[in-house]
């Protein structure tokens, strides 16, 4: 009895190990190991003699060069803004799909919403560029109806870049919001209405508190993807709207300064962790609960 129980226990442990091994290997070899290497690299720099030594100069450069830390702060603020805008746009959308529209069309509308995401991000961004560039569709149309006298450049502005980023990240907000709003009992909304609540207090007292786990998990994903996005800021923001990922890219590829690049990479990691932690603390949510 005792031995069989022990054997069973041992079997279980081997099984667990067997299934966990690929995950552990993947985490260790592809995430932990390269990061350790990058971390080491970020603390190494050439000294005057041209030898590699331990140094904080990579981090010092970041603080001494305004363009670096300005881009850094800009990227963080814009990411928060994009996350907030995405939320503001998708909440009514998700509410409409789950609560207002006839249940027959729910699936259809959700698929309609997901459809653009079957196309690669690159193609979608080029789609926006075709619409917005100086000789693009929108300019052509506005000229035709006489609203403009001469075409204006709509690309390469902060607004355009934010628009592109919101568009790119919508999917990752709308899916958790739909699933969390589906679990909201309609009678709670009706009860609140019956007890004297108007639309705004229903939104802030019932809907948003109920949807908080979905909002937080969607926001985390959107925020991280936006912060680490390279394609959209690069193509739609151009030279006028620098994104911190572009600085990292420049260091690695253009300047071939891997040490400076890794330092930037770690700084980005720090700010993203910091803001996610701040968001979780402010909304009083636990990460483990939110990602479920």
């Amino acid at each position: 009895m005792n031995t069989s129980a022990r054997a069973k226990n041992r079997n279980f442990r081997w099984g667990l190990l067997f299934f966990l091994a690929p995950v552990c290997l993947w985490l260790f070899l592809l995430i932990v190991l390269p990061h350790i290497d990058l971390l080491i690299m970020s603390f190494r720099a050439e000294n005057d003699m041209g030898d590699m030594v331990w140094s904080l100069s990579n981090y010092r450069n970041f603080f001494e060069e305004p363009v670096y830390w300005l881009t850094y702060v800009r990227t963080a603020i814009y990411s928060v803004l994009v996350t907030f805008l995405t939320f503001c746009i998708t909440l009514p959308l998700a509410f409409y799909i789950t609560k207002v529209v006839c249940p027959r069309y729910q699936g259809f509308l959700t698929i309609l919403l997901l459809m653009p995401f079957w196309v690669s991000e690159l193609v979608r961004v080029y789609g926006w560029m075709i619409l917005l560039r100086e000789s693009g569709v929108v300019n052509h149309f506005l000229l035709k109806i006489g609203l403009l006298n001469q075409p204006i450049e709509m690309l390469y502005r902060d607004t355009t870049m934010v628009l592109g980023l919101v568009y790119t990240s919508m999917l990752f907000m709308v899916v958790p919001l739909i699933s969390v709003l589906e679990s909201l009992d309609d009678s709670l909304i009706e009860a609140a209405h019956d007890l004297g609540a108007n639309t705004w207090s229903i939104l802030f007292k019932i809907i948003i508190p109920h949807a908080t786990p979905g909002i937080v998990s969607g926001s985390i994903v959107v925020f991280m993807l936006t912060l680490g996005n390279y394609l959209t800021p690069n193509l739609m923001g151009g030279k006028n709207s620098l994104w911190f990922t572009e600085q990292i890219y420049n260091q690695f590829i253009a300047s071939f300064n891997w040490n400076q690049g890794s330092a930037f990479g770690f700084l980005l990691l720090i700010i993203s962790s910091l803001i996610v932690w701040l968001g979780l603390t402010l909304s009083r949510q636990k990460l483990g609960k939110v990602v479920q």
Partner: protein
Amino acid sequence: MKIDLSVQHVTKTYADFTAVDDVSFQVETGRFFSILGPSGCGKTTLLRMIAGLSEPDSGKIEIRARDMAGIPPNRRPVNLIFQNLALFPMMDVAENIAFGLHRRGEGKAVIHKKVSAILERVDLAGFETKKIEQLSGGQKQRVAIARCLVLEPAVLLLDEPLGALDLKLREQMKVELKKLQAKVGTTFVYITHDQSEALVMSDHVAVMNQGVFQQMDTPQNLYNHPRTPFVARFVGDNNAWAGRVNSSDGKTVSIETNDGFTFQVLSDQSFQPGEPVDLFLRPEAMLIQPDEAIADLNRFEVVVKSLLFDGANSRLLVNPLKTGTELLIALPQNRQYDYVRRDDKIEVGWAKTSGLCFPKIET
């Protein structure tokens, strides 16, 4: 007497059927009024129209003599207790109860006082900081009631709030709800499909079927003098027996049942000879082995098919001799009938005042 709620010729039609069809009634201040009907009879639709969650197609709803047309639910002096109670799980008990008061913009101190007063009233003093999921079914019930009563509505609407409770608790809450209503004096409009809930608690009951009020009366009258076959079947248990009228003199009707028995029934309705009718007999109207000396009884012999023991509510399932008709007869548990066994042949009698006779409706 002041009228709190007045519903006049209200009709609500959905795409393919009429949920509520020209319903009118009035409820006086401080009354417990129930609407009793099978599921799908339109009672919830009616209640939601009173609460303002949907609008009637035609007709008028007045609360304390004010026309409610176009007034949204948050501005109506009525509150609704939902079938699933709809307590807010993201708030604790005190926040749930204070929700409506906050919406009215009352001061913090006033809210605090009112919340603890109402909690005391529903016997939940000290439960302010409890979470909703920590409460038992009966406690949730009382929080839901407190949440509405604290707003002092003109009319409190209740949508089968006892439906989710188990039997024992339901029996207990029935009595408690009745006592609470008497204590606070608020007008209650209660809908249910459970006839016992309606009969026990209400001052007046309306029986509803297919969007129409069949009868509106006191519980006693509904039970003793149902005016339609539907009410006779739906309120309490009844045995239905199909037959034809032999003769009718405006007072006594002589009926021959389809299986050959002849009975006398008192009725103030008059019937044509040969008219098909349904005869309704309450299980407790039938006496087992009645004394020979009692005159004017409709007597017949039956064979006992089975004994349905259910404590005070025990019944006999019998067949009248040589027929397939099934009848339920009340079996008082006073030891007097302990000798009755399965397959026994016994005599049964009923007074002609206790039978009810309605023209047969083709179904």
